[in-house]
């Protein structure tokens, strides 16, 4: 019975942001997903402007004859600048995905880490993205929800409340490589 239920979960390759959202909210499906090159979620995330900007930063640094690099560039919806990003990311829900990036609407903030290495006149970039879906992050209002006091009070209470069952924490992990000439 349990086996049959597991087989019904969409694979990492094909799962959409909508399906991931339902999976997280309902508490069904795996609590940890590892996405890689070619998976729908990875390819959608790759189209995000923040990822494109990070790629440009890496390539410009590598153009200065650097043989290898490591660093990170987090995408954050908090802070003052986060308000505009927040509105842009969530506008997808009103336009059915025509604006913004649907994968990022689901993910919210994420930590993007990279390594880059020069190889035969090309650059190999490996990336690592970590994101967690929790009730605290989903229910956090813009500005107010990013004050330190929110995290210590309301945010903490919300996470305590959703330790089991629906809305339980879901970890999304993306890894992959890309070659640039």
């Amino acid at each position, binding site marked *: 019975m349990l086996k049959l239920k597991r087989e019904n979960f969409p694979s990492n390759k094909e799962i959409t942001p909508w399906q991931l959202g339902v999976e997280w909210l309902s508490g069904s499906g795996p609590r940890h997903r590892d996405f890689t090159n070619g998976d729908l979620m990875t390819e959608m995330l790759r189209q995000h402007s923040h990822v494109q900007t990070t790629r440009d930063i890496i390539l410009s*640094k590598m153009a200065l004859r*650097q*043989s*290898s*690099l*490591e*660093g*990170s560039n*987090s*995408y*954050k*919806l*908090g*802070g*003052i*600048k*986060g308000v505009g990003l927040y509105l842009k990311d969530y506008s997808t829900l009103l336009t059915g995905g025509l604006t913004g990036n649907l994968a990022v609407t689901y993910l*919210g*903030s*994420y*930590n993007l*880490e990279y*390594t880059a290495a020069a190889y035969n006149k090309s650059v190999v970039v*490996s990336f*690592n993205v*970590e*994101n*967690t879906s*929790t009730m*605290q*992050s989903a229910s*956090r209002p813009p*500005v*107010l929800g*990013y*004050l*330190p*006091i929110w*995290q210590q009070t309301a*945010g903490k209470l919300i996470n305590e409340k959703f330790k089991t069952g629906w809305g339980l924490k879901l970890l999304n992990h993306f890894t992959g490589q890309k070659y640039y000439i």
Partner: protein
Amino acid sequence: MKTKLKYLLITLLTIMLYSCGETKPKQSDFIGTWKSSDKASIKLNINGTCTLKGVDHYKISSFPKNKNKELNAEGTWQFTENIESGIVDNIDNGITITYNLPEGTKGEIVFYISGQGINGNNPPWNIFIWEGDPDEMLKYEFIKNK
């Protein structure tokens, strides 16, 4: 009507708290040795050089090769502008550390600055990076040695 009034009060309170007296961080505040709870240390020198000792490499760069590895390196540091930590605290400075690894890799860490008080924007300062997803608000934090 009651709901509107409630939101208005919350907004006013937020603005009031946000604009409470604050001291901006300055470069000289960061010269010295910084320690984390896992006994790692970062020494920021007045001449712009720095030394990293026992820093959890996996927290800086979560690739499998860095698991259970310490980052011990020499490098340089800068007090940088336009750094957004993701917390509404009116601090837009950070510490950018560039370090060199033995195999010729150049690494970069951007540390955010946090402070004390209800808005976290008053000295003494701490420096931190987010551990994993910034929305989780888990910090890998360094406190200045007195």
